[in-house]
């Protein structure tokens, strides 16, 4: 087994303000293999998004270190793509030129990026929309465009920060299937942060539960279904062990919430 793609060694993070010091994360230890999909759930405000910011290099850890492919993270890495809760599509650009934002920032060859963008649009059912304005797309389509925008910048690792939470329930379920399919097909490593337990279970190979502040991982569940490894998130909701996982994670989370109250 080679070097883990993402590794966090005893990472801690504190926020400082003139009046307070807030310890957000403590003793975070994490290893993610290439191509693995992990979900992180936890009580709100427990620093899940902070953890993603650490992996992406947007924040520096106060203690410990974050490594990508064995290299210490120092600033925003081009290996990492971020998918945010809001799609942040720019209304003054059409869909295609929105897809090229990341490539433009990272100075990736424009022609190659454009080809890739058009290919991905076609591949994921958005073929006819390259020259539409974002305001003409539905919420689910906008999020898919946002995912493609991240992929055009060719990251190895995708960080998904509650990417479905702004959508209605129905769109959410179908989009989860799509995104899962796209990420698996593209062979990316992914970390999904969510507060939706079923979403966490059905998308990931492994679910990590975070405790309340100062947060650390309190439990880890390897998600394996008897029905086979290639179930879509939708099918997994009906799979035999789904309820068992759900109850386990629910209890674990409940303990944190109860002790917080």
């Amino acid at each position, binding site marked *: 087994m080679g070097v883990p793609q993402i590794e966090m060694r005893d990472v801690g993070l504190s926020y400082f303000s003139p009046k307070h010091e807030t310890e957000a994360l403590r003793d975070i230890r994490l290893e993610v293999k290439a191509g693995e999909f992990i979900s992180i759930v936890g009580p709100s405000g427990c620093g899940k998004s902070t953890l993603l910011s650490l992996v*992406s*290099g*947007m924040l520096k850890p106060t203690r410990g270190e974050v490594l990508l492919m064995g290299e210490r993270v120092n*600033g*925003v*890495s*081009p290996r*990492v*793509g*971020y998918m*945010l809760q*809001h799609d*942040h599509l*720019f*209304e*003054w*650009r*059409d869909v295609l030129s929105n897809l090229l*934002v*990341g490539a*433009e*920032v*990272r100075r990736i060859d424009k022609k190659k990026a454009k080809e890739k963008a058009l290919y991905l649009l076609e591949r994921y*059912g*958005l073929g*006819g*929309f390259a020259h*539409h*304005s974002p*305001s*003409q*797309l*539905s919420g*689910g*389509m906008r999020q898919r465009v946002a995912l493609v925008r991240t992929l055009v*910048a060719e990251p190895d690792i995708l960080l998904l920060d509650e990417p479905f939470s702004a959508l209605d329930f129905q769109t959410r379920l*179908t989009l989860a299937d*799509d995104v899962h399919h796209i990420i698996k097909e593209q062979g990316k490593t992914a970390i999904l942060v969510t507060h939706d337990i079923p979403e966490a279970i059905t998308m990931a190979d492994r679910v990590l539960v975070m405790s309340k502040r100062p947060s650390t991982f309190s439990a880890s569940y390897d998600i394996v279904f008897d029905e086979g490894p290639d179930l879509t998130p939708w099918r997994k909701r009906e799979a035999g062990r789904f309820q068992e996982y759900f109850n386990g994670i629910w209890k674990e989370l409940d303990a944190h919430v109860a002790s917080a109250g």
Partner: protein
Amino acid sequence: MSLPPVDETKEPAAISGLPEAPSARPQSNEAPKSPAYRRYLKRQRRRTLFIQLSRLLLLAGLLALWEIAARLRWVDSMLTSKPSQIFSSFRELTVEGDLLKHTWTTGLEMLVGIALSMAAGTLIAILFWWSTYASKILEPYIVVLNALPKVALGPIFYIWLGDRYSIYGMAIAISIIVTIMMIESGFKELAKTKLKLMESFGATRLQMLKMVMLPASVPNFIATLKVNVGLTLVGVIMGEFLSSKAGLGYLIIYGGQVFQMNLVMVSVCMLALMSVVAYGVVNWIGNLLMKKYHYEG
């Protein structure tokens, strides 16, 4: 699983202060209008017409009242002038005098003033966004400058810049602070939302500025420009009041000093006309830009 695009054709908002156009929705031609809808359209058209007519009538009525009051000596026309006199002296002044030259002078001063204060204001707002230090350091100065009545600076501008350029000094002094504050607050709003994505790609400040801040600020620029036009004109006229040899402000002051109410009234009317034109032009430019940057549905 491709959903049909959501294409909500929004009603054009009545920004311009013009009466609401009778809602001419792009009803597709095959759908026949129901009688109720047709009645609604008719009512709307009549309403719009009524409003426009009333406006004209109000103006005509006021002018007539003014004229009659002056003729029947209810008021002293030495003090109030009267519409017919204003009209004839307008003709005189344009044909023989140099009213148009003065209007042109003021118009040009306004244009230059707007351009300078928009450019300088935007640059300073960018500086404030770029450097938190600079913005923290300069914040109290901006607050004081904003509260200071800029007219008080008139003599200083006159001594430093001379009678011609002091007008620009005054125009910019009056409009730039508000320009800075409006553009900066727009930037702050954007920084909260739109920049997270750019950060995640590791964008530099210059990239953020070029790719997000400036294009995303277009609606805010237009709003600022609208405010700026009014303020700059105030500044220009104030500057001309204090020191000048030409311009509508000069004519107004001069007319007041030699007790020629006609001259004052004509100049004020020209000024009103000019601000209407300026506002119209800004509106038009604004609409063009909004369309270019797809800010309409």
